[in-house]
Each structure stands twice: as C-alpha cells, then as structure tokens.
C-alpha cells in the first residue's frame, strides 16, 4: 500500500479518480443486470406476445415450476453427470496423472505431448465441436479407425452415445488447463521433501497420496473451483455438438435455460433457471474457497 502523503499521488489523484469512472459505471451496469435477472425470475415475462409487454409479478411461481414441471431436475442431473465425469474425473484426475507422468521427462517427448494437449485447449469451441462431429459421424475417424477394424458396422455415435461423446470431447478440450496448473503445483513441491519420503521407505503411491497431494491442496482447490464452475455453466461445445439432444439426453442447465428463454420464449422461467444456476455455483464456490483457506 502506497503512502498517501506522496506528492506524486496527491497531484495525480483527480485525473486518476476520473479515469476510474468508466469501469465503475460498467460494474454498476453488471450489478444492475444481475439484479434485473433476479427480478425477471419473479415475472411471467415472455419473448413475444402479450406477456412481453403486459407482464406481471407472479411471485415464486417460476421457482415452483422448476420443481413440479418436467425438465429442470432432469437437466440438473445431466449437468451433474457431465460436470462430474468431464471436469472432476476427466480433466482433473487425468490432468494430474499426466503432469505426474511427464514430470521426469524433458526435451522433445514432453514438448510433443504438451503441444498436443495445448492445441485442443487453444482451439475455439466451435472448431473443437466440428472436429468431434466429424470424428463421430458414420464415415468419421472413430468408426474408420476403431470400430471397422474390430469388425463392427459403422454407427452414428452421436445418436446413440451422445452424453459420453460430449464428455469425452470436453475432456479432450479442457485437460490442458488442469495439466498446466498441476505441473506448476508439482514444481512447487520441494525436492528434498520427496527425497526424505523416499529415504523413509514410502512407496510411489504413498508419496503421491500422503506427501504430494496434501502439499498442493491449495492448487487442487483452485483448479476444482475454476473447472467446476466453467463446466457446470458450459454451453458452447455441448450445444453445437448436440443442441441438447437427442431428446433431452445432453440438455445441461445452460442449454435448458437457452431453450426456455429463446426457444419457448418464457424469459421469466429462463431467468429462474439462471438464478438457480447462480445459487448452485455460489454454494460450490464457497465450499471450494473454504478448502482453499484451511491450513495445510
């Protein structure tokens, strides 16, 4: 914190305060929009028709509808499965394993694996989606390289295994981030601690579970915080691959919200879904942030 008596800061104070105004205005807009989203969720506002102009306050009806009508709970379940398998099992565990396996490697081998991971991550979502759409189509990569050599008929994987395909595509796309974070975390574990554990006779698995994991606890919590939130609210890849279908098999909450708001046109209902998503994300964040703060 800089001293308040510095003549430089005293002379620059006025222009600095003026310079802050655009950002403050935008923060106000963001808070206002969030408040608006919450307010909408208590109305029967619709995209078109009578209710788009003459909307009324309807109390908690939209929220009651979430739990009594078909759709929300099913969509929540799909989202939970998608998040658990693609973010926690896929990206986190796999990313950590890769970071651990690549740690003793230097040179070309490591660069090649890292480059392959990074390409998936750097690619725009829609390009990743197109690649997977092509790979799982009947004449595509998976059928040509895996199923046909095994003597099976080519099948439309997206029609039959939509959710697994979407999960795998997201693991392919997102693992690099967890890998990078865990690589940095492993670098922060002091070498002599590992040596001491080795000398004391800890096996490889014991060293990982009893020494490394507790030491990088904060990194794990940070990683989980970000990828859980991102995956839980992810829209683009899933929507562009399946549109939520077939049926509602891959209709995660963000797609459900989009369909309710801009497909069916029930904006009030869509806003209620958004608020529910914000609440869930908020609770998850608090949980992870508590993990982050606890002593090692």
């Amino acid at each position, binding site marked *: 914190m800089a001293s308040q008596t510095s003549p*430089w800061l005293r002379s620059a104070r006025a222009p600095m305060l003026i310079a802050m105004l655009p950002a403050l205005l935008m923060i106000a*807009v963001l808070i206002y*929009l969030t408040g608006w989203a919450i307010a909408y969720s208590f109305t029967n506002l619709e995209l078109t028709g009578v209710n788009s102009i003459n909307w009324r306050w309807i109390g908690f009806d939209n929220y009651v509808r979430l739990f009594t009508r078909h759709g929300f709970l099913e969509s929540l379940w799909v989202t939970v499965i998608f998040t658990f398998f693609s973010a926690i099992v896929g990206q986190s565990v796999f990313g950590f394993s890769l970071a651990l396996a690549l740690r003793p490697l230097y040179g070309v*081998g490591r660069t*090649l694996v890292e480059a392959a991971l990074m390409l998936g991550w750097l690619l725009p979502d829609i390009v990743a989606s197109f690649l997977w759409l092509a790979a799982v189509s009947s004449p595509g990569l998976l059928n040509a390289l895996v199923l046909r050599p095994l003597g099976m008929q080519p099948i439309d994987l997206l029609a039959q295994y939509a959710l697994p395909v979407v999960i795998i595509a997201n693991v392919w796309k997102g693992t690099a981030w967890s890998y990078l974070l865990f690589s940095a975390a492993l670098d922060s574990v002091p070498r002599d601690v590992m040596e001491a554990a080795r000398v004391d006779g800890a096996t490889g698995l014991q060293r990982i579970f009893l020494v490394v994991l507790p030491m990088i606890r904060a990194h794990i919590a940070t990683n989980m915080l970000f990828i859980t939130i991102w995956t839980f609210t992810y*829209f683009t890849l899933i929507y562009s691959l399946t549109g939520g279908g077939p049926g509602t098999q891959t209709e995660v909450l963000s797609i459900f919200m989009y369909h309710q708001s801009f497909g069916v046109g029930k904006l009030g209902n869509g806003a209620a879904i958004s608020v529910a998503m914000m609440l869930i994300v*908020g609770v998850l964040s608090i949980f992870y942030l508590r993990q982050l703060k606890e002593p090692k």
Partner: protein
Amino acid sequence: MDAQSRTPPLMAVALAFIAILWASPFLWLVTTAIDPKTTGSLDFPHALGPDNFIHALSGNSGLQLINSIVLSVGTATLTVIVCAAAAYPLSRLRLPGRNLLLWGLVLLRLLPATGVVVPLYFSALWLHVLNNFGVMLALTVLNLPFALLLLKNFFDTVPIELEEAAYVEGASLFQIITQILMPLSRSGLVVVWFFSFTGAWNEFLLPLIFSRTAAGFPMSVGLFSAFGQHGAVDYGFLAAYSMIYAAPAVLVYFLLRRNLNTGFAGVGVKG
C-alpha cells in the same frame, strides 16, 4: 539424460499413444482442408490445392473473419483500457470503500455469464445494439471483474518509487504513464488483452442471440450455421474454415507466450 532414462518404456509408449490420440483430429483437419476432393474420411489427399481456403475466405465467410477480428481486437483493447484506468488508482490510492469494491468484484467474478444473458438481450434491444458492437460492449462488461482484479494485483507489484522519482524530475502525468508505468506493467496488460481476445474470439452464445444476418456473424456462429447448410456436409470447406478460425487463437498464444508466463508469475506474487 539421467532423468530421461528413469521413465519406464511402458509409460513412454502410453504417453506417445496419448499424444497421437490427442493430435489425430488435427491430422484429419489438415488433410481434409488441403484436399479439394475430400470425402471427409481420414485418407491421403486425393489432390492438393488451396480451393477450400479460397472458398472459406470469399463471400460471407470472408466477412465473418473480419467481423471476428474487429469484435475480438475491439473487446480486448476496450477491456484493457477501461480496466487499467481503474486498476491503477485502486492499487495506488487508499479510497473509501476500496475493500468492499474488491470483494464485490470477487463475487461478480464467480457469477456465470449465462445468468445475465436475458437482461443483456433486453439492454441491447433497448440501446439498438443487437449487433457485434453490442456483443463487444457486453463482453467488456462481463470481462471486467476478472480483468480489474488481475491488473490491480499486477500494479501492486510495480514499485511506486519509480513514478515518484519521475514526478520529482518533472515528468508529466502522461509521460509517467506512457514511459514508466506501461513498459513496467506490459506483461500484466498482455495477459488481460490475451484473455479478453481469446474469450471474444471464442464467444458463441452472445453473437448467437445478438447477430441477425449471415454477413454479420462472427466466425463462431458462422461455422456453427455452416455445419448443416448443405445437403451433404462439405467437409473440405468446413475444415479450411476451421483452420482459418483457429489460427489467430493459436498464433496469439505463441506470440505472447513469453509475456504470458512472466505475467502469470507477476500476478502470482500477490494474487
């Protein structure tokens, strides 16, 4: 060498397999894009030629590339300017309500952007900016909490003594900003610019709702709507379009890589 020899051969084979598995879609993408007579299956190219790329750069798809560039460069630059102008005073001045604002930003940072899509749509409708300019404004607002926190933390690591010395020597405010502050905080500014750029380059939901005509789409929506446009999927065109669309995101990363690493390190000190 010593470290290399410790990797068991089985592990090396597994890693090589993973790398090939991960990269195989790109191989397909490249062979499909450079083959004007492609059928979409993984194959040696039937012919070589730039036809697909020419097709992907003409007409609406060419316009969509320009839209994406304008949208992303605009969003990134606007975000950096607005955030830097506020982050610097937040880092230097002891303002009333400063901690409240910072904690508010942390909370706002955690909100999913999907949550405010409906009010954003109405604001854009009301302001008559249901177009790429509206997307640019909306993305800047959504980027703000993260970018502001990151830059504030970054400015905290830049020593104030240099600015004071320059002030004593008679430098103007403008000179101090352009000659001292900006070169010193380059990495932080680059990180924010990079994140905003790739975020806007990727953005799909907002342009999907805001853009109305094919000539106005950015490349994300353009590619998405081209998936099912033809009776038979035109894999060559889509692959070439994908490569053109992916190139800037990959290129920007490698160009800024060194800055990004130092930027992250600087942020890590206090963040």
